[in-house]
C-alpha cells in the first residue's frame, strides 16, 4: 500500500471504447459515477468531511453536546498543549514504546522467519503458533495478559523465587514492558509471515553460488539475505510503527493507562480528554497534532528505507 505514490498514467481510451461511449459524454460520466460514487460518498462522509471539520474544531472551544455553543479561540488549544504535562508525558511514552516495540517485533519476527524456513520438522506447526495471536483482538489479548502479569507472574515468583516477577503492571516501568511484551508476542508472527514471503523470493542460485564460494551462514545472511529482504523490512517498519503510535485497545485492556496515567499512550490521552473531561475542541487539537506526527513519521520512514533497498 505504500508504493502508490505514482498516479496511473496511461494512453487515452482505445479507439473502440471511444466509439461506443462517445455518443454522450454525459452518459459516460453517469456511468463513471454509478461505479465510483457509492464508495466516494461513504469515504467523504466518514473520512474527508470529519477530517476537515476536525481541523476547524481544533480552533474552537466546544464541549461536544450537540446544541452547545462552539466558540472560536484561535490557536489557544495548540498553545495550551505545550503546558499539558500529561499530554507531553504520553507523547514521549508513546515514542519510547514505538521505538522499542518496533525493534523487538522486527528483530524477533525476522529471526523466527530465518528459523522456520530451515528444513525443520516442526516448521509448519511453529508458523501456525507464532502467527496465531495476531488474529485475536487486542482488547481480548490485553485481558489475557493482565491475568498472566498479575496472577501467573506472582505464582511463578513463588515457585522460582524470583522477586522481580511480583507486582507487574503496578509500576510505570513494568507497565511499559508489559505493553512491549504483549505487542511483541502479538505482532512478531505477523512480521514473520512477511519476512518468510521475502526470504522465499530470493533466487536459490544466488545462495548456492555463495555457498560454492565458501561463504559462511553469517556472511550469507549479512550480504545476500538482509539486502534482499529490505523491501519487507520497509513494509514491516511502516505497519508496526503506525500501529504502535495508534495503539489503543491493548493499552485500555492491559493497564488502562495506570498506575496514575503513567502508561497512558497518545490515543488514550485524546480519548480521555474528549470523553472524560468533555473538552472536544482541545482533544481535537491533540488529534490534529497526532495526525501530523503519524503522517510525518510514516513518510520519513518509508523514504529512508526505500533509499537503502536494492534491486536484483
Amino acid at each position, binding site marked *: 500500500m505504500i508504493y502508490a505514490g505514482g*498516479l*496511473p498514467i*496511461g494512453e487515452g481510451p*482505445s479507439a473502440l471504447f471511444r466509439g*461506443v461511449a462517445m455518443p454522450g459524454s454525459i452518459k459516460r460520466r453517469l*456511468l*463513471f459515477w454509478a*461505479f*465510483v460514487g457509492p*464508495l466516494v460518498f*461513504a*469515504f467523504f462522509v*466518514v*473520512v*474527508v468531511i*470529519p*477530517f476537515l471539520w*476536525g481541523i476547524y474544531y481544533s480552533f474552537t472551544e466546544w464541549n461536544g453536546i*450537540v446544541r452547545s455553543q462552539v466558540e472560536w479561540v484561535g490557536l489557544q488549544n495548540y498553545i495550551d498543549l505545550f503546558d499539558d504535562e500529561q499530554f507531553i508525558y504520553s507523547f514521549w511514552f508513546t515514542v519510547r514504546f514505538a521505538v522499542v516495540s518496533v525493534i523487538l517485533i522486527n528483530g524477533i519476527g525476522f529471526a*523466527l522467519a530465518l528459523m*522456520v524456513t*530451515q528444513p*525443520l520438522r*516442526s*516448521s509448519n506447526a*511453529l*508458523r501456525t*503458533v*507464532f502467527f*496465531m495471536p495476531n*488474529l*485475536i*483482538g*487486542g*482488547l*481480548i489479548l490485553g*485481558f*489475557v495478559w493482565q*491475568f498472566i502479569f498479575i*496472577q*501467573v507472574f506472582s*505464582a*511463578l515468583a513463588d*515457585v522460582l523465587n524470583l522477586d522481580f516477577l511480583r507486582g507487574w503492571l503496578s509500576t510505570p516501568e513494568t507497565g511499559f514492558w508489559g505493553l512491549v511484551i504483549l505487542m511483541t508476542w502479538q505482532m512478531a508472527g*505477523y512480521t514473520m509471515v*512477511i519476512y518468510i*514471503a521475502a526470504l522465499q523470493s530470493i533466487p536459490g542460485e544466488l545462495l548456492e553460488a555463495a555457498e560454492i564460494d565458501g561463504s559462511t551462514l553469517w556472511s550469507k545472511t549479512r550480504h545476500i539475505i538482509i539486502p534482499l529482504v529490505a523491501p519487507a523490512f520497509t513494509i514491516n517498519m511502516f*505497519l508496526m510503527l503506525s500501529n504502535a*503510535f*495508534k495503539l*489503543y485497545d491493548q493499552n485500555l*485492556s492491559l493497564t488502562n493507562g495506570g498506575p496514575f496515567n503513567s502508561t497512558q499512550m497518545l*490515543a488514550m490521552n*485524546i480519548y480521555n480528554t*474528549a470523553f472524560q473531561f468533555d473538552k*472536544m475542541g482541545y482533544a*481535537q487539537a491533540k*488529534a490534529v497534532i497526532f*495526525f501530523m506526527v503519524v*503522517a510525518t513519521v510514516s513518510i520519513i520512514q518509508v523514504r529512508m528505507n526505500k533509499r537503502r533497498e536494492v534491486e536484483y
Partner: protein
Amino acid sequence: MTGKKRFILFLEVIGITIGIVFFFPFYIMLINSFKTKPQIFQNTLNLPGGLEWSNYVKAFERLEFLQAFANSMFITVGSILLLILFASMAGWKLVRTKSTLSSVIFFMFVSAILIPFQSVMLPLITLMGKIGFLNRLGLIFMYLGFGSSLSLFLYHGFVKSVPKELDEAAIIDGCSEFQLFRKVIFPILNPITLTVIILLTIWIWNDYLLPSLVINKEGMQTIPLQMFFFFGEYTKQWHLALAGLTLAIIPVIIFYFAAQKYIIRGVTQGAIK
C-alpha cells in the same frame, strides 16, 4: 554434513522451546478457565483437579454470547459485502478511466491511509449523532468509509493486471457495462476479493473502539464490547473472566484453522501490495 544436521537439530529444539513460550498464554488461560475461584489463587500453574463447566455456563449467559456473536457476524458480513461490491466497482472504473479526475480520486483514497482513526473520531461521532445514524447500520456505513482506502487500493492494483481487451470483447458481444462487470470482471477479481475479505474480517471482527462509540442500544453489542463490560463487572473473578475470554477466542481459532492457507496468503498480499 553432520555439523549441518546437528545445527538443524539444535534449531529444532530452540524453535519448539520458543513455540511453547508463545503458546503458554493460551494454555494457562485454558487450564485456569476450568478451575474454581480459590483454586486459581492457590494453584495457578497446575492442571485443574476437575472441570468446572459452570464457569462457561455463567460466562455464556452473562456475555449473552449468542446475541453478541450474531451482532458481530451481522456487522462484519454486512460491512464486507458492501465494501467488496463498491470497492471492486470503483477500482475497475478508476483504472479503466484515464482522466485527471480519476487520478485525483485515487490519490485521495491512498493519502487517507495516513489518517489515524483518532483524528476523525470526534467530528464523525458528532455528525452521525446529529443525523441519528448510529448503531448497527450506522456502524456498517462507517466501516464502508474506513475500509474504503485499503480495499480500493488492492482492487485498483489488481485490475491493472487484467487485460483491457476483455472489456472490449464483452462490449462487442453486446454486454452493458453492468453486465460486463458482473459477469466478466468481478469473477476475475476473485483472488484479490479473497485477500480483501481476510483483511477486513480480522480488522472488523476484533475492532473495539469504533463500536464502543457508535453502539448505544442494549442487545446490539459485538463480542469485544460485551467482553469489555463483562470484564469490568467481574474483575478479580478470574474463573469467569477466563472462561469468557476463551469463549471469545474460540470462533477466531476455528476461522484460523479452517482458512489458514488463505489467511496467511491474504495477510502477505495485503502488506506487500
